């Protein structure tokens, strides 16, 4: 067991899981960092992305790679709707409001999915799953190998949007200094819509990809939401690059915990890590200013 | 023996030195003014003295005791009160409750007595409320006793701050720009009240102010800060004519040396 190949396999598995965390956390860190919203329903965007993929591929025969942008667009629309209907009315209130509201939204979305799709886990079937890659003693199915690649593409795209488009600059401005951003003419409503659209799309894309590897079922979003928050905290609130590093770190840490210690502790390790970070470096490993007591 | 003594006090925020090599003595019964251009370190010094910020180096002694390592709540209980440049109050409490609250730590039966409903605790609360009412009357706020503190005007809120400080019979009262944002009649009122605090109640005052009229009329002595260092410490009239002070405020056309990290 303690061979180099084993360790490498563990590492690769960790990077794949980590990629998923990166996607979910990137959007969440913007929503959390810019809009100050603690969004309990973020994992539901992930879940619904998975279901959109299932519907697209089983009902309409859409191939996986085409289903991805469709699914992401669909979930983005959902995110926009959520922003308008649920989060905008309570925007300037304190954080408990958004927690409760988003919790209500999560309950609605989970149970709507349960009604629409039933409780059985479902999988996106694709012919790609029969292809398997192997190198240096590491085995990986094609769509699992695709995950980090697609993630990297999305991260780069996201980075380009943030840095070089007007919308992206507005987002960064609001993240750095909301009041001055508003005084400079940034439309906070548009920023909010864009933030939710992008955040939801990324989470939905992650969910769709995972639905081809694991299964999707209505409750899958719960743990995803919680883990995404730990990644956001570790990477620094509002810090997209931090989210990338922290997401990969979490994936790898979980993989190694599960591989070398026990699978029981797999989920716990992330939460212990985040408590350590919160106690000793609350601004995150790479973060900015902090709410201090 | 000086009531307050700062010895070689230094405060650094990362690479920025906000206060350096500061020596200051305040004798009991004095009204000492603290002035200086914006950013000279006045509020920082007030925060160091009242324990809101920790010192980077040096020592502060109050009433013979080294208070350098102490947190603000402990320093407050030793007899130091303060007001804040940006007015602070407890929004969900009434005016009376705001003013009476500082007495809590000084009530013998403590929180336990209050929770258990001892008669002694209720009696202490009654006396505390009475004392607060006396002070509200002194500051002209008696009719507002049960109103939410938020409903008062700025001038009235500043009075409430002064009342809140006085209620504990402090030995030292640090006033951080008490006249800021006040119309001239209220400024006169503040001057009169501060003078009475010292004359009738023997409270030593450290007065941070920008409004020069207040400083000239009230202070026995004025300390001038510039770039975190003391550049003058003398009677108000002398300080007003000190060339270094004039240059600090208006500038002499030369590059000023700043305290370096």
């Amino acid at each position: 067991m303690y061979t180099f190949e084993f360790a490498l396999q563990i590492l690769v598995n960790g990077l794949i899981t980590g990629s998923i965390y990166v996607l979910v956390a990137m959007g969440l860190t913007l929503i959390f960092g810019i809009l100050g919203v603690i969004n309990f329903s973020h994992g539901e965007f992930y879940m619904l992305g998975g279901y959109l993929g299932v519907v697209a591929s089983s009902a309409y025969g859409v191939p996986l790679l085409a289903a991805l942008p469709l699914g992401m667009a669909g979930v983005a629309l959902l995110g926009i709707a959520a922003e308008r209907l649920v989060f905008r009315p309570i925007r300037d209130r304190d954080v408990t409001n958004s927690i409760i509201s988003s919790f209500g939204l999560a309950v609605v979305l989970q149970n709507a999915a349960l009604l629409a799709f039933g409780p059985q886990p479902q999988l996106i079937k694709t012919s790609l799953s029969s292809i398997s890659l192997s190198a240096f003693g590491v085995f990986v199915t094609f769509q699992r190998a695709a995950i980090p690649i697609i993630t990297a593409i999305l991260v780069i795209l996201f980075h380009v949007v943030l840095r070089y488009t007007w919308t992206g600059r507005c987002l960064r401005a609001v993240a750095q200094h909301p009041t001055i951003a508003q005084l400079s003419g940034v439309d906070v409503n548009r920023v909010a819509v864009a933030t939710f659209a992008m955040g939801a799309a990324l989470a939905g894309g992650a969910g769709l990809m995972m639905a081809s590897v694991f299964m999707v079922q209505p409750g899958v979003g719960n743990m995803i939401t919680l883990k995404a928050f730990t990644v956001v905290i570790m990477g620094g609130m509002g810090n997209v690059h931090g989210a990338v590093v922290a997401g990969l770190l979490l994936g790898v840490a979980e993989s190694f915990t599960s591989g070398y210690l026990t699978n029981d502790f797999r989920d716990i390790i992330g939460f212990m890590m985040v408590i350590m970070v919160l106690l000793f470096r609350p601004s995150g490993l790479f973060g900015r200013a902090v709410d201090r007591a | 023996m000086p009531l307050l003594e700062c010895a070689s006090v230094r405060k650094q925020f990362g690479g920025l030195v906000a206060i350096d090599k500061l020596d200051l003595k305040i004798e009991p019964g004095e009204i000492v003014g603290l002035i200086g251009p914006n950013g000279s370190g006045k509020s920082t010094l007030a925060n160091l003295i009242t324990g809101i910020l920790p010192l980077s180096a040096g020592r502060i002694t109050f009433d013979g005791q080294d208070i350098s390592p102490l947190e603000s709540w402990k320093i407050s209980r030793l007899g130091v009160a303060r007001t804040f440049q940006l007015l602070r109050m407890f929004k969900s409490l009434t005016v009376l409750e705001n003013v009476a609250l500082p007495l809590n730590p000084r009530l013998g039966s403590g929180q336990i007595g209050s929770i258990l409903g001892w008669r002694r605790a209720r009696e202490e609360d009654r006396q505390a409320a009475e004392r607060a009412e006396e002070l509200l009357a002194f500051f002209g706020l008696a009719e507002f006793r049960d109103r939410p503190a938020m409903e008062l005007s700025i001038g009235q809120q500043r009075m409430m701050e002064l009342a809140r400080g006085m209620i504990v019979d402090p030995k030292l009262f640090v006033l951080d720009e008490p006249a800021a944002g006040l119309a001239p009649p209220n400024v006169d009122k503040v001057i009169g009240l501060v003078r009475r605090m010292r004359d009738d109640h023997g409270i030593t005052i450290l007065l941070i102010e920008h409004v020069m009229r207040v400083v000239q009329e009230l202070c026995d002595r004025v300390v001038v800060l510039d770039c975190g260092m003391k550049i003058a410490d003398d009677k108000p009239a002398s300080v007003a004519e000190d060339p270094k002070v004039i240059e600090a405020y208006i500038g002499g056309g030369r590059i000023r040396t700043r305290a370096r990290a």
Partner: protein
Amino acid sequence: MGRLATLVAVLGSVAIPFVVENSYIVNVCIVIFIFVILSVGLDLVLGYCGQYSFAQGAFYGIGAYTAAILYNNFDLSFWVTMPAGILSAGLFGLLLAIPSLRLAGHFLAITTIAFQTIVYLLLTQWTELTGGQYGLPMRPIEPLSLFGFEVLRVEGTTSFYFLAFAAMAVAVLIAQRLAGSRLGAEWKAIHDDELLARAIGLNATRNKIVAFVASAALAGAGGVLIAYYLGSVYPTDFSIWTSATVVAMVVVGGRATIIGPIIGAVIFTAMPEVLRATQDYKLIIYGLLMILAITFLPDGAVGGVRRLIRARS
């Protein structure tokens, strides 16, 4: 007016088991009483002291599992496991208080969420101690014996109803005493402006710790009760969703009041039962109601009623 209303409510509650034929309602009331203990406790730390705590479900679970573990391993009776559950939950409350001393706002909220999740994960994964997903069984409340004489016997739904009611009454009384005391005033001050509270001489650190410990201890008591009521403990009853529900009870009911959390507990416990008729749509409507409640009642039900009264006069 308040006294009269309280008296009517107490008498009405005492009468319910005798007057109401449907034992279903009695059972719902028992659950309401337990959640009142949780929500009133949370209000102390969240509403009065202003510290975002999303871990009430964890303390609820710690109380329940302490009782279950002590019974299953040491055969201890309710009369020992109840104080033990309160104590152990309180101790964990002390643990959670520590990050609160340095964090506030979003960061404190996330820390408490992480704490809640760790506790939940330990309950599901530490199978040797907690029985994991399968939980642990409980037996009914044992009779209380002093010096060999049986003093108190709690058997059957009606007896449990009165036990739960008594526990709730004690919890509400404790919360009221705390909130109405100097400690309560200091909590409100810390909530409004902690820096100023310290500057006037208040020991904010100790006050915050007391708030966390008190709210956790109350939740622990509720947990012990639910364990005996249900006859078993399972991790799913003590999750982040439970915590979020209790927060909703406090916020939608009305923060920093005593009646607010009570109203909230009634609303959120009764709602799923009232919605039972809608079956599959039950939880969807529940979630929608939660969103609507928090959107249109920012000060909770109590605040809404106050505004109505003020608008009339």
